[in-house]
C-alpha cells in the first residue's frame, strides 16, 4: 500500500536529518569550511523535501483509509437496521441507534487512523534508539533514560483524566438540567416568585462544576509539566555527559546537536503510543456494540420456499393464533377470526385487548407464537414478504410522513407510480382539495422542515398513501383518534370512499367511526367476546357498552366551538 511505503520513506528521511545536521556542523561549521557546509546544506534540503512529500502522502492514505472504513461500516449498519424486524425496533431507541451510527463508528474510525500513524511513530522510535546506541551507548542512556517514564506518565494521565472528565460532564449536565427546567417552567417560577429558589439551586450546581474543573486542573498541573520536564532532563544529560565525551575526544559537537534533535523527535511518538492504547479499549467497546447489531438476524424474512400470494378477494383468517410480544405474556390467546373478502370489520376493545396486535400480525410485522394467519388461504409465514406487504395498506395511529413532497409521500409504496394514480388516491382520500390549495400543490414539501399540516390533513395523506397501490386489505389503526372530533366527519367520508370493495379492518372506539363497518368484533384479553353489528352489540353486550363509554370519557374534548 502506498501509505505504508510513504510512511517508511518518511521515517527514513526524518531520522536522517539530525544526523545530517550533526555532520554538517562537524565537517562544515566548526572547521569553517564553507563549501562543505553548503554541500551538507543541500543534502539537508533534499532530505527535507523527501520528508515533506512523504508526509503528505502518508497522511492522505491514512486518513482516507480510516474514512473509507468508517463510511462503509456505517452503510452496512444502516442497511441492516432497515431490515431488522419490528420487535428489535420496539426495544431499541432511535437515540441509541443514532449514537451507534455516530459515536461508536467514530471511535472505530479513530483507531483505524491511529494505527498507521502509530506504526510510523514506533519505527521512528526504534530507528532513533538504534542510531543513538550505535553512536554512543552512554549518550543513548543519558538521552533516553527519562523517556519511558514519559510514556508511563502520559498513559496514566489519560487514564486518570477519563473518569474526572466524565464526572465534569455529569455536573455540567446537572447544571444544564436546572437551566432547562427554569426556562421551560418560567411561568411557574415567575408565577410563584420562585426565582431566588432556582438561583440557589444553580449556585449549588455551578459550585459543583467549579470543584470538578479544579480537580481536572490539578491533574493537568501534576502531569503536564512533568511530561514536559522529562525530555528536558534528557537534554541536560546530553549536554553534561556528551560535553565531557567531547572533551575526551570521543564525541563531536555535531553529535550533541544531533542527539538534542533526536530526543525532541521522540516526544510525540511516545505520547502517540499512549493515546493508541486508550483509544483501542474504547474502540473495542464500540466495535462490540456495532457488531451486536450486525449480528442480529432479521427475524422476519422470507422462507426458502416462500411462494407468491395467491390472487383473491382479500379474505383474512386467524386460526388459533396465540401471540405475545417478545415471547412474553400472550396478548392474543387462541384467536379465531374470519374476515371475508370485501368485508369491513371494526375491532373494538380496551387497551391491551389485542386489537392493534391483530392489525400488526396481518402484514407479518411479527410472527405468531402458534396458529396461523392467512390471506386468501396463504399462510403469511410461507408467502413472499413483499407480496404480503403490498397486499396490505396500513394507516397507523400516529401518522408518519417524510420530509418530502406530498406527491412522494403518497407514492411511497410505488415510487414509479404515475401522477394519475397519486391524484386518484388523493381524491379517494378526500385530500385532493386541500393539497391543491397548498403553496406548491403536490410538490409542496412537508414533514419536519416543511409545510405544517393539521392532524386531519396528515391523516388524509396517510390514507391516500395506503390506497395508492390498491391493496386488497386496508387496515385503519385508530386513524381518527388524533383528529379534532369536529373535523372527523371529513375523514370518515374519505374512509367510506376508500373502503369500497376492499377488505377493511378498522380499529376505533368512536361510535361514528365504528358505524362505518359492517360488523364489529369485540376483543378482551386476546379473545373474541362479542361479534355482530354495532346496534346488536349495543343492545346485547354490556362489556361493549362499557368500552365505548370509557372511550368517550377519555375523549371528552375541551373544544370551544367557534362562533358561527
Amino acid at each position, binding site marked *: 500500500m502506498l501509505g505504508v511505503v510513504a510512511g517508511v520513506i518518511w521515517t527514513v528521511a526524518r531520522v536522517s536529518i539530525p544526523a545530517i545536521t550533526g555532520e554538517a556542523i562537524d565537517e562544515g561549521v566548526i572547521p569553517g569550511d564553507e563549501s562543505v557546509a553548503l554541500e551538507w546544506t543541500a543534502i539537508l534540503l533534499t532530505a*527535507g523535501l523527501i520528508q515533506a512529500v512523504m508526509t503528505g502522502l502518508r497522511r492522505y492514505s491514512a486518513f482516507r483509509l480510516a474514512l473509507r472504513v468508517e463510511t462503509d461500516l456505517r452503510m452496512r449498519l444502516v442497511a441492516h437496521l432497515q431490515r431488522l424486524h419490528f420487535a428489535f425496533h420496539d426495544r431499541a431507541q432511535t437515540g441509541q441507534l443514532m449514537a451507534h451510527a455516530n459515536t461508536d463508528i467514530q471511535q472505530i474510525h479513530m483507531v483505524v487512523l491511529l494505527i498507521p500513524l502509530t506504526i510510523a511513530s514506533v519505527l521512528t522510535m526504534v530507528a532513533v534508539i538504534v542510531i543513538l546506541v550505535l553512536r554512543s551507548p552512554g549518550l543513548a542512556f543519558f538521552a533516553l533514560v527519562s523517556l519511558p517514564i514519559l510514556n508511563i506518565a502520559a498513559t496514566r494521565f489519560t487514564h486518570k483524566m477519563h473518569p474526572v472528565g466524565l464526572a465534569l460532564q455529569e455536573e455540567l449536565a446537572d447544571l444544564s438540567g436546572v437551566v432547562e427546567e427554569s426556562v421551560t417552567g418560567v411561568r*411557574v417560577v*415567575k408565577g410563584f416568585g420562585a426565582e431566588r429558589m432556582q438561583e440557589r439551586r444553580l449556585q449549588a450546581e455551578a459550585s459543583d462544576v467549579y470543584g470538578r474543573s479544579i480537580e481536572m486542573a490539578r491533574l493537568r498541573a501534576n502531569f503536564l509539566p512533568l511530561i514536559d520536564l522529562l525530555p528536558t532532563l534528557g537534554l541536560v544529560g546530553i549536554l*553534561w555527559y556528551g560535553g565531557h565525551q567531547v572533551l575526551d575526544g570521543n564525541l563531536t559537537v555535531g553529535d550533541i546537536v544531533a542527539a538534542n534533535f533526536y530526543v525532541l523527535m521522540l516526544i510525540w511518538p511516545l505520547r502517540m503510543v499512549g493515546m493508541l492504547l486508550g483509544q483501542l479499549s474504547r474502540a473495542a467497546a464500540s466495535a462490540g456494540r456495532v457488531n451486536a447489531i450486525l449480528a442480529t438476524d432479521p427475524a422476519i424474512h422470507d422462507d426458502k420456499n416462500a411462494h407468491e400470494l395467491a390472487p383473491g378477494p382479500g379474505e383474512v383468517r386467524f386460526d388459533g393464533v396465540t401471540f405475545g410480544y417478545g415471547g412474553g405474556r400472550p396478548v392474543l390467546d387462541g384467536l379465531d377470526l374470519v374476515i371475508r373478502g370485501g368485508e369491513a370489520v371494526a375491532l373494538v376493545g380496551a387497551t391491551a385487548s389485542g386489537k392493534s396486535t391483530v392489525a400488526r400480525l396481518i402484514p407479518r410485522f411479527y410472527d405468531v407464537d402458534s396458529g396461523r394467519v392467512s390471506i386468501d388461504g396463504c399462510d403469511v409465514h410461507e408467502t413472499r414478504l413483499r407480496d404480503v406487504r403490498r397486499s396490505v395498506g396500513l394507516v397507523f395511529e400516529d401518522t408518519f410522513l417524510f420530509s418530502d413532497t406530498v406527491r412522494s409521500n403518497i407514492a411511497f409504496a410505488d415510487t414509479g407510480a404515475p401522477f394519475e394514480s397519486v391524484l386518484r388516491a388523493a381524491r379517494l382520500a378526500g385530500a385532493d382539495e386541500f393539497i391543491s390549495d397548498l403553496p406548491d400543490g403536490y410538490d409542496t414539501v412537508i414533514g419536519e422542515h416543511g409545510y405544517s399540516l393539521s392532524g386531519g390533513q396528515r391523516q388524509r395523506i396517510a390514507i391516500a398513501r395506503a390506497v395508492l397501490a390498491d391493496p386488497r386489505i386496508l387496515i385503519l389503526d385508530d386513524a381518527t383518534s388524533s383528529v379534532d372530533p369536529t373535523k372527523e366527519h371529513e375523514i370518515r367520508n374519505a374512509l367510506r370512499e376508500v373502503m369500497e370493495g376492499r377488505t377493511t379492518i378498522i380499529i376505533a372506539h368512536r361510535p361514528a367511526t365504528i358505524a362505518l363497518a359492517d360488523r364489529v368484533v369485540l376483543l378482551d384479553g386476546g379473545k373474541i367476546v362479542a361479534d355482530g353489528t354495532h346496534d346488536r352489540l349495543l343492545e346485547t353486550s354490556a362489556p361493549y357498552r362499557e368500552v365505548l363509554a370509557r372511550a368517550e370519557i377519555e375523549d371528552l374534548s*375541551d373544544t*370551544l366551538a367557534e362562533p358561527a
Partner: protein
Amino acid sequence: MRGGAWVEAVPEETLSREEAQWVIRRLLKLLRPQRRAIAFVTVVLIAQVGTLLAGPWLVKYGIDQGLDDNDPGALNFAAACYLVMALLGLFLGRAAILLVARIGERFLEDLRNRLFKHLMSLSLDYYEGEKTGRIVARMTSDIDSLQELISQGLVLFVQNILLFVGSVVIIFLLSWQLALGVLVLVPPVYLASRWFRTRSNKAYLEVRDRIATNMSTLQESLEGVRVVQAFGREGSFTRQFGDTNEAQFEANLETVRISSRYFPIVEFTGVAGTAVIIGYGGWLSAEGVVTVGTVAAFVLYLNSLFEPVQQLSQLYNTVQSAGAAMQKIFGVLDTKPTVRERPGAVDLERAGAIEVDDVTFAYLSQPVLSDVSLSIAAGERIALVGPTGAGKSTLAKLIARFYDPGSGAILVDGVDLRDATMQSLRERIVVVPQEGFVFAGTLYDNVRVGRPEATDDEVEAALSALGLLERFRAFPEGLSTEVRERGSRLSAGERQLVSLARAALADPSILVLDEATSNLDPGTEAQVEAALERLMQGRTAVVVAHRLSTAARADRIAVVYDGRLAELGTHAELVVQEGHYAALYAAWSSHQAQPDVA
C-alpha cells in the same frame, strides 16, 4: 508542547474588529476583581517561559565556554544551570496551570450565576420571544465553549506568544545577521497557517453540514422504519442514505486534502530553517562573526519559533468561538426586564378586589386587548371565556402582571400593579398554569415552590387543606419521594395536584387559573375538581375557562371576543341574552348530548 486535536470546534460566526474590541473591553471589566491574581500569574508565566528559553542559551555557553575553551568546570556549570532551570520550569508550570485554572473557573462560576440571575429577572415577554433551546444554550453551550478556552487555550496562548517573542529577542541578541536569515522563513509559515485555517474552517463547516443532513436522513428512516417496512421501501431508503453517506465522505476527504498540503509545507520550512542556519551560520562562523555555540543554539531555538506560530493558528478557532459566545452572553446581560418594580413601591393589601381600568394591550404591534374594563369583587369567582386568540389568556397574564398594559391600569385593592412591590404581588396573586410543571426534587421541594421558606409541616398543612395529604403520603417515600425532571413519575393529574398545592401553600388572595385542557383519568379528575373548589374558597378567582361547564359554575362570566369585553353577567343572564355566550353554550351542549351509556 504539541497540541493537535483531531476534531476541532469550528466557529460559525466570526467577530468583526469592532465587535471583538467591544467584547474584550467588556471581558476585561468582568475580570477586574481578579486583576491582582492575573498580574501574578502573568509574572509566573513569563518566568516559566524564561526557563524554557534558557536551555539553548546554556547549551551555547556549554559549547563555547566549556568545549571550545576546554573548561570542564564551565561545562558542569552549564549543565547544572540547565537542570536547575528545568526543575524551576516544572514548579512554575504547575503553579501557572493551577493559578490560571482558579482564576478562569472562578470567572466562569461567577458568570454562570450572574447570567442566570439576570435571566430570572427578565420578564415573560423575553421568554415568549425566544426559543427555549436558544436561551438554554446561552447558559450551557456558550459558557462551555469559554471553558475550553480558559482551561487550556489561555495558558497556551500566553505561553506561545511569550515564547515566540522571547526567542526572537534572544536570537537577535545572539546574532542579528543570522536572526534575520532565519526570520525570513517565519512569514511563509504564518501565511501557510492562515491559509490552512481559512480553508479548513470552510471545509469543516461543509463537513458539519453534510453530517447533519446524513444524520437527519438516518433519523427519519429510523423513526419511520415501521412505515418503511410496511410499504416495502427498505431498499430505496438504504440507497438514499448511501448518497448522503458518500457525500459526508467526500466532504471529509476534502479536509484531508487540505491538511495534506499544509503539513508538508510546515515540516519543510522547519528543515529549511536548519539549512539556513547551517549554511549561512556556517559562513558567519567562518568569518568569525558567530561562534559554533551560537549556531547550535539557533538550531535549538528554531523549534520555539515555528511551533508557536502553528499553535496560535490552532488556537484561533477556539478564541473565535469563545468571542462569539461572549458576545451572545453580553447581549443577554444587556437586555433589560420590561416588568420592573418602581422605586417607592407599596405592598398590596389582602382583600383581593381587582379593577381592570380601560386596558389596552398590544403584542408585537398586534392589538390584543382594547379598552377592557372590568370590576371583580373580593372573593368573586369570574370565568373568562372566548375563542382562542380573543385575549382572555392575555387578560389573565395582565392581572398577574406578567405584562404591563399599553394604556389603562390594573388595580388590586386600589393599588396600581405597577406601584406594587414584586414580592407582595407574587404573594397575593398566584397563577396556576394549564399544565402542572414539576421540577426535579422531592414532592416537598416541589410544593415549596409556592413559598420557599415554608417548613415541611406547612407543606403538609397546605396539602391537607386541599384534601390531598393522604394521596401524596401514599407514594413510595411519601412526600420525600424524588420526582424526576419534568415530573415523569407523576401522571398529568398528579402534576396538577402539585400545582394546586403550591397555590395553597402560597396562600394568595387572588388566584389566576388557566384551566387544564388535557384529559385526566376520572379518579384524579374528581380529586382535582374537589381540591380546586377548596382552593378557591374565600379567594378571588379569575378562571380562564376552556370548558363551559366550568364557566357555568362561576359567579360571573366575562366573554372576551376580538380583544374586547363583549358580554358580562351570570350564566343565567347570558344564556338568555342570545349573544356569543348563548351560542357557544348551545353548540357545546348539543355536542355533549349522547345516549347515557354508563
